[in-house]
């Protein structure tokens, strides 16, 4: 029982990270109908900018951890958002109106480019950092001596994710930018006919997705304490799986999918095999695509006109 509770805590933590990345996939799909395969790399950039930020904070002598993390978070979100914006501008916008596969191929190109760019500029070796947030709550102990721990870092990750989700939901449902995004998602031509700058709205979607991925990147940097230029690939595909599981294009779906994938991975690792945890996640992808391609909360492709 205690062991299970621990795995659920671990799974929800991991799922928060996937959920934040998955939102970027699902938003971009919703608005321009393409899978941004470079999104995993944007998350990796977020992890690297966080790492550099933490080192810079150390050099500047900012030792109060909440302030340091807050500043790193803002800086990383801003810088990563700039990457997200640039990727759309350089690699996707010129191909808008081209055949459907063109931006997809371009995305794979961007993905390879960003990996190599980070590999060359930052080096290929894994980058470790010492733990920044230590300690945690001991929730319960079993008779056999197993203690369930919710670390402060896990709590930080889960709470930050919830705060971001609330803010994000407000942004989408209540602000003019959110309304413009929903309008573009439902009918881009009509959106421009009511005076919405569609290109700008699409840019902002990439910016928002990248900023959330940056948060995920920072969380992973802190949580695992080691990153390399290749982490975007696997995390990207898993977050993509989460988006598909939840129903691509659906924002609540992305969050639900992220949490489920995180839980499945944690539980699979705990009870079956750590080596095959990726297989578990991807089996889900195959099963969803086979039996419920619209996902748990997604809409079927065909719409009444």
């Amino acid at each position, binding site marked *: 029982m205690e062991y299970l509770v621990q795995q659920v805590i671990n799974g929800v933590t991991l799922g928060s990270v996937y959920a934040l990345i998955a939102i970027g996939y699902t938003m971009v799909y919703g608005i321009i109908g393409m899978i941004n395969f470079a999104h995993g790399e944007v998350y990796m950039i977020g992890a690297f900018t966080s790492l550099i930020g933490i080192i810079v904070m150390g050099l500047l002598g900012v030792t109060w951890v909440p302030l340091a993390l807050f500043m790193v978070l803002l800086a990383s979100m801003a810088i990563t958002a700039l990457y997200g914006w640039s990727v759309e501008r350089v690699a996707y916008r010129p191909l808008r109106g081209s055949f459907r596969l063109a931006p997809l191929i371009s995305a794979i190109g961007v993905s390879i480019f960003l990996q190599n760019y980070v590999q060359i500029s930052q080096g290929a070796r894994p980058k470790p950092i010492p733990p920044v947030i230590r300690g945690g709550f001991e929730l319960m102990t079993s008779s056999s001596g197993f203690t369930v721990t919710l670390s402060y870092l896990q709590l930080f990750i889960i709470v930050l994710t919830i705060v971001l989700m609330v803010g994000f939901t407000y942004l989408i449902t209540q602000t*003019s930018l959110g*309304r*413009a995004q*929903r*309008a573009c998602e*439902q*009918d881009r*031509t*009509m*959106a*421009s*006919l*009511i*005076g*919405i*700058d*569609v290109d700008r709205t699409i840019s902002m979607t990439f910016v928002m997705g990248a900023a959330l991925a940056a948060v995920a990147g920072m969380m992973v940097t802190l949580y695992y304490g080691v990153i390399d230029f290749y982490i975007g690939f696997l995390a990207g595909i898993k977050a993509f799986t989460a988006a598909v599981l939840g129903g691509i294009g659906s924002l609540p779906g992305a969050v639900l999918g992220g949490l489920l994938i995180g839980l499945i991975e944690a539980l699979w690792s705990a009870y079956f095999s750590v080596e095959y945890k990726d297989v578990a996640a991807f089996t889900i992808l195959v099963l969803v695509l086979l039996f419920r391609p619209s996902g748990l909360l997604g809409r079927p492709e065909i*719409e*009444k*006109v």
Partner: protein
Amino acid sequence: MTAPMLKIEGLRASYGAIEALKGVDVEIHEGEIVTLIGANGAGKSTLLMSMCGKPKPSAGRVIFEGRDITGMTTHHIMRLGIAQSPEGRRIFPRMTVLENLRMGAVVTDPAHFDQDLERAFTMFPRLKERQNQRGGTLSGGEQQMLAIARALMSRPRLLLLDEPSLGLAPIIVRQIFQVIREINAEQGMTVFLVEQNAFHALKLAHRAYVLAGGKVQMSGTSAELLGNEEVRAAYLEGGH
């Protein structure tokens, strides 16, 4: 005579390799209802859309209130005082009626919103009843009302309407045409109406153009065209 509110000169536009407009000239004066009639595929909708920059005209000019708007991006054009209720209505299906109306008002001062909403609901009481219903669940007639109301929410000076009667029951068509007549008479709204339902359109409009094969074939006052033998034979006979 004062300068026209809208002047289209030698407008050409293509969809891919097909040239849909082959040099169209149209003039619309402030306060007029002008209709553009023609068969399916004559280029009527293309004219309305390319005025709004989708697709961009390949040649010719569009002058609105003395300003050359040819080649401007769509969202800029729609912020100058032009609004369109497009072909197929294009209601945002997963937004409520109220949200759709709010979307129509994105270019205007939010301070006007309540007042404009009230006006829209007075014009189409049906929309008030349905205000929290999703756009995609409305009937065709309700969607058409919503499309017109949404266009009016931006407080345009020129209203473009693309086939508002298409697929609607005659009683709804009469109702919608009555509203168009009222907004023209009471608010002085200039209306450019594209219609296949030539009889109704000519009854409503002050002047008309006949478009065929991407060119203006005829133009004149509605009364002239209603009495014209060719127009009668091509567009009016057959029980409209």
